[in-house]
C-alpha cells in the first residue's frame, strides 16, 4: 500500500495555462517540503473541476477540509511514529494494562491524552472500543478539546474510528486515521481513501481496518461504527 504523506502537503504547486508555476503554502507551523511527484495529480484536477482557485486561502480551506493543519493532523503525524511498535502488544504489560489484554483502546487513549484531547480517566478505565463506537457515549474533553461524533460521513486526519462487535474478548476495535489517499486520490470518492493506525495483537501498524469498519468490508460486521473528531 503506497501511502501519500500529507506531511508534505504544506507546499502546493500548480501549473497555470501559460506554464507559470503558482506556489501556495499551507502554514501549519511544521517545516517540510512537498514532493509533487508523490502526489496524485487527480487531486489537482479535482481542485480545478471544483473551482478551487490557486490562492493560499482556498487551498488552506481545501486542505483543512481534509484535516490538514488541525489538531487531528498533528495527532495523525504522532500516531504514525508508532508504526511497528510492540509496546501495546497483547502479551505485554503497558502502563496500567496487564499482560494478555487487548490494548487498541489504550493506544488511542494514550495518544489523545498526549494531545490533551481527552480527560484523564481513572486508572485502568479508559473508554473501551465499544464506548468510542457508541455515539451516545460522551468522551470527556481534554484541555485542547473533545472528540465529538462526526455525522456527515467525512473522514479527516486524526479522526478516531471505532466499531462495535460482539467478540467474546473485546467490545470492538478503535484506530486513528493517520493517512489519506493510500491508493491515490479519487475525486469521486474523496472520503473513501484513508488508512488508520491502531494497536493490534502483536504490534501497531497502519492498515485499511478503519476504512473496512466504516464501509462494512471488514471480516466481521461492526455495528455501530462511529467517527469522532477533535473539536
Amino acid at each position: 500500500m503506497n501511502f501519500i504523506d500529507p506531511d508534505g502537503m504544506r507546499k502546493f504547486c500548480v501549473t497555470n495555462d501559460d506554464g507559470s508555476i503558482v506556489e501556495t503554502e499551507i502554514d501549519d507551523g511544521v517545516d517540510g517540503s512537498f514532493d509533487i511527484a508523490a502526489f496524485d495529480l487527480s487531486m489537482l484536477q479535482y481542485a480545478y473541476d471544483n473551482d478551487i482557485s490557486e490562492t493560499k486561502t482556498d487551498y488552506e480551506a481545501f486542505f483543512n477540509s481534509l484535516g490538514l493543519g488541525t489538531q487531528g493532523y498533528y495527532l495523525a503525524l504522532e500516531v504514525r511514529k508508532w508504526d511497528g511498535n510492540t509496546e501495546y502488544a497483547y502479551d505485554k504489560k503497558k502502563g496500567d494494562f496487564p499482560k494478555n489484554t487487548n490494548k487498541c483502546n489504550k493506544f488511542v487513549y494514550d495518544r489523545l491524552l498526549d494531545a490533551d484531547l481527552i480527560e484523564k480517566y481513572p486508572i485502568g478505565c479508559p473508554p473501551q472500543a465499544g464506548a468510542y463506537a457508541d455515539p451516545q457515549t460522551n468522551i470527556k474533553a481534554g484541555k485542547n478539546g473533545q472528540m465529538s461524533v462526526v455525522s456527515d460521513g467525512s473522514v479527516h486526519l486524526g479522526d478516531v474510528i471505532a466499531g462495535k462487535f460482539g467478540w467474546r474478548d473485546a467490545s470492538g476495535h478503535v484506530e486513528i486515521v493517520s493517512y489519506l489517499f493510500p491508493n491515490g486520490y479519487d475525486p469521486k470518492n474523496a472520503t473513501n481513501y484513508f488508512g488508520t493506525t491502531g494497536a493490534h495483537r502483536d504490534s501497531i501498524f497502519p492498515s485499511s481496518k478503519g476504512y473496512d469498519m466504516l464501509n462494512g468490508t471488514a471480516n466481521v460486521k461492526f455495528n455501530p461504527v462511529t467517527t469522532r473528531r477533535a473539536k
Partner: protein
Amino acid sequence: MIIIMRNIIGVFMLLLLASCALTKKVPSYPPRYDYYSYDSYDNADFDYGRIYAIDSVDGGKSSMLDVFTPTKGDNKVVRYISYDYGPTFDDYRDSINFLLVLKLDLEGYVLDGFLCYLQTSDYPFSSFLLRTNKRIKVKDGISVKKLEFDCYRNSISDDCRDIDFLQRRMNLGIIRFQKNAKSR
C-alpha cells in the same frame, strides 16, 4: 393434468424452501452453552481478596482460574466450565471458555456466584464480570438464567450496563453435573 399440478406444487415447494433458506436469521448470540462440572471444593470459600483485585492480575485462562480458585472456608465451592471455539479480537480464532463458579451452603443453595470469560482480554476485567446471589438450589440440568446474573460492577459507564453486552456476556446455558468432576 395431475402431472402439471404436481410439477406446479413441486416448484412452489422449492421456491418456499429457497425463500426460507434466504431469510433464515443468523442468531445474534451464541447457542446455549453446557456448563460442565470442572471441580468442587468442600470446606471452602471464595478468595475474595483475589476476586476484588481481579484487575491487578494478568489476563488469560490460567490467571482467571487462579482468581477463582477457592480458599479454605465453611462452604462448598463448585466450578463449571463451558467449551467453545470461535472468533476473537482482531480476526483470531481461539478457545472460548466461560467459568461459572458458585459458593453453596450445605443444602446446595447458592450463596454467591460469578460468571466470567476465562480468556477475557478487554480491560478492566471487572467490567465484564457477572455476579449472582440468587438463593436457588443448584440441580443437574438447571438453566444458568435462573441464577439471574448481573454486572459485578455497577457503574453506568461500564460496557456491562450495555444491554447487548450484558446479554452476550451472560452466555446462558445449562449446568451439567459430571460424576468424574475433580473433588478437592
